[in-house]
């Protein structure tokens, strides 16, 4: 076996033909810290002659100045490209590297071993066909070996190479190699991995990487590069059902209406009958349009534009499917969640879910269980912390089309996005739709919000008072309600303390309970708006995300955020209920402003500075705002 860059190819056409028909293998290297992943990839690049002279010169210079291998080349420096990585001698982020042999092209994701960067490892694994799991022969199986193996299995990688590394430091002991291989196979069996090849290597010395090593005469299996060159990759199955998420509606003029996207399953031909999900309408493919001309056939992986014979309403995020085997449609699922945020998961807080080209609002229920990746035990938990994996129910605000992740990665894999920071906070794998999501329907009611409001002669609205404890929310809300009452308006005041005596008496003051507290009150306020009332909500409501959620439950113009802006020093001086004193003494935990955060509104409709304006004047201002916005006019 030799690696080369196909030197001296006889003709350019012949060369390009060979290149074009090479298959592509994507693999990841993973395992624990310091087990030599970066060194292994550096060596693969070096041995496959993918390095140029100037890069080798830089490597030699870097090896001398910051290397860890004395006078030898430090191959890890080829891949740890960030300054912080060089300083600490570790891999922080996933790096994608390219190399080729005569048979194949490779994209390798070099992923970090540190537990704190597990999410980056998951990123690398999500697109890989094969995983190379490195084990330091001196250490044997570690927590990270098990964690990464479990993640690899979870994400659907079935082919595993266990590279048992640093054997040079143990005199190439066959006994050590066999013991670790045995331990690994025993663990792998429990997580459903059975296609495993164990190879004794030294990434540093180059044993069994590209040529069989004379140091391991007892080993009869393939060297690493031979395995990677010949392992079969699950090909595109032509019998898979057709799936086409619509990315972009292509309308250059009124004559042409096309749907652009990438095929993520099966194939399509002009004349095929397709179903549009979630609407369920059907249509027939007219043309498969590309700039290079229309196609007779397009299959999995291709980016094309389809036109249809029928004029039906299709938008970005809809999925075109085969009619004989369409995807499912639902708004409630069971899913595996891999939590990727530094902040713990808060059940009940809405976030965004992106799947294919569709983004919807989603809420997670508390985990059914989380998984101890060492023991594979199912543990009870109310939340998930960074890098934890659990199984949860997820509820969406509208139905989506999907397949189980095990059937189709693109149709069953999703990410969750925080609504405030916009960060990706979790990855998820859909298992199945919950039956109740298909069985609970909205009851159509004829006496609707408009009818209720018309009878009361007003436009319903929510006045949402937020601010620190002792800021003056309830005092001002009370005055506003008295004025509304005097004007003959129908209103109701939902006060934080009062609701906690009844509806929410099961909730405490942890972040998770605060989120649930606000979720329930928002839903109650929404029902009251439906009944035609002007609802005053007086809650500390410390998190922007929940206030945003309350806003989004209502129609545009129905939600008015009133920020009662009192500095903490002033609220603490007033301390009408003596709570600040208690909190300062440590008798009261999770008190907003002391040991629990308050997130100031960024764009409230009304801001009341209680240090410069009296409660009476504040109430006047709020009523004036309602008048100016037409809430108090006859509906």
């Amino acid at each position, binding site marked *: 076996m030799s690696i080369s860059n196909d030197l001296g190819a006889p003709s350019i056409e012949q060369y390009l033909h060979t290149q074009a028909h090479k298959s592509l293998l994507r693999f990841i290297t993973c395992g624990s810290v310091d087990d030599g992943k970066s060194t292994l990839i550096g060596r693969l690049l070096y041995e496959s002659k993918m390095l140029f002279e100037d890069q080798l010169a830089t490597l030699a210079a870097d090896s001398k100045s910051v290397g860890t291998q004395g006078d030898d080349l430090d191959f890890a420096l080829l*891949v740890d490209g960030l300054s912080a990585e060089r300083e600490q001698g570790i891999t922080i982020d996933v790096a994608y590297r390219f190399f080729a042999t005569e048979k194949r092209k490779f994209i390798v994701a070099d992923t970090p071993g540190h537990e704190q960067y597990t999410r980056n490892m998951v990123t690398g694994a999500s*697109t890989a066909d094969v995983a190379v799991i490195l084990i330091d022969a001196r250490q044997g199986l570690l927590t990270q070996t098990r964690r990464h193996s479990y993640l690899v299995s979870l994400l659907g990688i079935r082919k595993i190479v266990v590279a048992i590394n640093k054997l040079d430091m143990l005199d190439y002991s066959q006994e050590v190699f066999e013991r670790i291989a045995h331990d690994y196979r025993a663990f792998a069996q429990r997580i459903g991995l059975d296609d495993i090849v164990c190879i004794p290597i030294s990434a540093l010395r180059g044993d069994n990487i590209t040529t069989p090593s004379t140091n391991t005469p007892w080993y009869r299996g393939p060297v690493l590069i031979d395995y990677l060159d010949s392992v079969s990759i699950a090909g595109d199955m032509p019998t898979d059902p057709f799936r086409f998420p619509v990315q972009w509606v292509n309308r250059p003029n009124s004559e042409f209406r096309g749907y*652009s996207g990438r095929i993520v399953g099966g194939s399509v031909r002009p004349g095929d009958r397709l179903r549009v999900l979630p609407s369920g309408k059907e249509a027939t493919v007219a043309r498969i349009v590309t700039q290079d001309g229309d196609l007779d056939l397009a299959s999995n992986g*291709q980016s094309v534009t389809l036109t249809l014979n029928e004029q039906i309403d299709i938008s970005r995020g809809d999925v075109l499917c085969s009619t004989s085997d369409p995807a499912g449609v639902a708004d409630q699922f069971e899913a595996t969640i891999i939590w990727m945020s530094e902040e713990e998961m808060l059940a009940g807080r809405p976030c965004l879910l992106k799947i294919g080209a569709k983004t919807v609002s989603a809420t997670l229920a508390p985990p059914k269980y989380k998984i101890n990746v060492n023991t594979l035990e199912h543990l009870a938990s109310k939340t998930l912390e960074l890098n934890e994996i659990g199984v949860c129910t997820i509820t969406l605000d509208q139905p989506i089309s999907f397949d189980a992740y095990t059937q189709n990665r693109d149709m069953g894999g999703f990410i969750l996005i925080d609504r405030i*920071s916009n960060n990706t906070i979790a*990855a998820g794998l859909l298992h199945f739709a919950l039956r109740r999501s298909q069985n609970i329907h909205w009851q159509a009611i004829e006496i609707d919000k408009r009818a209720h409001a018309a009878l009361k002669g007003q436009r319903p609205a929510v006045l949402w008072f937020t601010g620190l404890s002792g800021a003056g929310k309830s005092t001002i809300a009370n005055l506003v309600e008295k004025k509304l009452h005097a004007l003959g308006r129908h209103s109701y005041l939902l006060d934080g303390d009062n609701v906690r005596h009844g509806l929410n008496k099961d909730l405490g003051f942890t972040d998770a309970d605060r989120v649930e507290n606000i979720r329930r009150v928002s839903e109650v306020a929404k029902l009251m708006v439906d009944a035609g009332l002007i609802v005053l909500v007086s809650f500390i409501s410390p998190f922007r995300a929940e206030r945003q959620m309350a806003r989004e439950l209502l129609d545009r113009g129905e939600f008015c955020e009133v920020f009662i802006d009192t500095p903490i020093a002033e609220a603490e001086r007033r301390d009408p209920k003596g709570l600040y004193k208690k909190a300062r003494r440590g008798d009261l935990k999770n008190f907003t402003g002391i040991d629990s955060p308050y997130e100031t509104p960024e764009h409230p409709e009304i801001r009341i500075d209680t240090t410069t304006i009296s409660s009476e004047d504040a109430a006047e201002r709020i009523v004036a705002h309602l008048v100016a916005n037409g809430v108090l006019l006859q509906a």
Partner: protein
Amino acid sequence: MPSLTHLQRLEAESIDILREAVAESAKPVMLYSIGKDSAVMLHLALKAFYPSKPPFALLHVDTTWKFREMYVFRDAMVQRTGMELIVHTNPDGLRDGINPFTHGSALHTDIWKTQGLKQALDAHGFDLAFGGARRDEEKSRAKERVFSLRSAQHRWDPKQQRPELWRLYNARKNIGESLRVFPLSNWTELDIWQYIYREQIPIVPLYLAQPRPVVERDGALIMVDDERLPLRAGEQPTMRNVRFRTLGCYPLTGAIESEADSLAAIIQEMLIAKTSERQGRMIDRDVSGSMEKKKQEGYF
């Protein structure tokens, strides 16, 4: 069923990225630097949105120090494709007469390219910019996401990158933040040349070898493109058969001696190349990790 060839797979992935970015942004723009990667990226954009025209403009952040042939080629491409072109030249650079000779390559690059890019993006309110960067170019590029978030100050924070799973890209951002999107992330230099050959994509003739006037300076062959290049004592331009593997500001871009005067010959030459394409780039030589530093400061 025939499976896709390597270039077909890369093409399909890039088109997917281009469409997704456009669908998720309010005001996208494509950075167009006139080089071979820009040429491929523009070609892919024309395919991605066909029969529509790509729904964005091209942005050339001009340092005023590009090769003359690049300006000619740029204007010809704009004519040919009918794309809108925005040219931005940093007024501070013009005022202070910033050039690579008196101010050094680092300051020259910072003022003209990094600051110029930030000014242009801010002035037009672009919230997403396509760039032709590839992961095989440089070590810190290998760590870059396809969708890369930049702060309101255009800074890149490599430790706060969003995990990027499957083919799902998170394009959401807050007011002031923007995205750099790299549709060619998974392409290599050799892929680019093979694709240019297969698709017959027009490129600046400077990539092809022909006799050009050059001086040898600090181990590089610098082409005397106009009278602004101050000749050092003893320097005498000579005609040599050269071409460029990468194009930038002419005083900072080294040529290579070559006989490759066709696309096929370029690919054949690449197969036996002993040096990387960026070897001719003076701006990468400043210090180890300089690309990472430039990216953190807002370079694309």
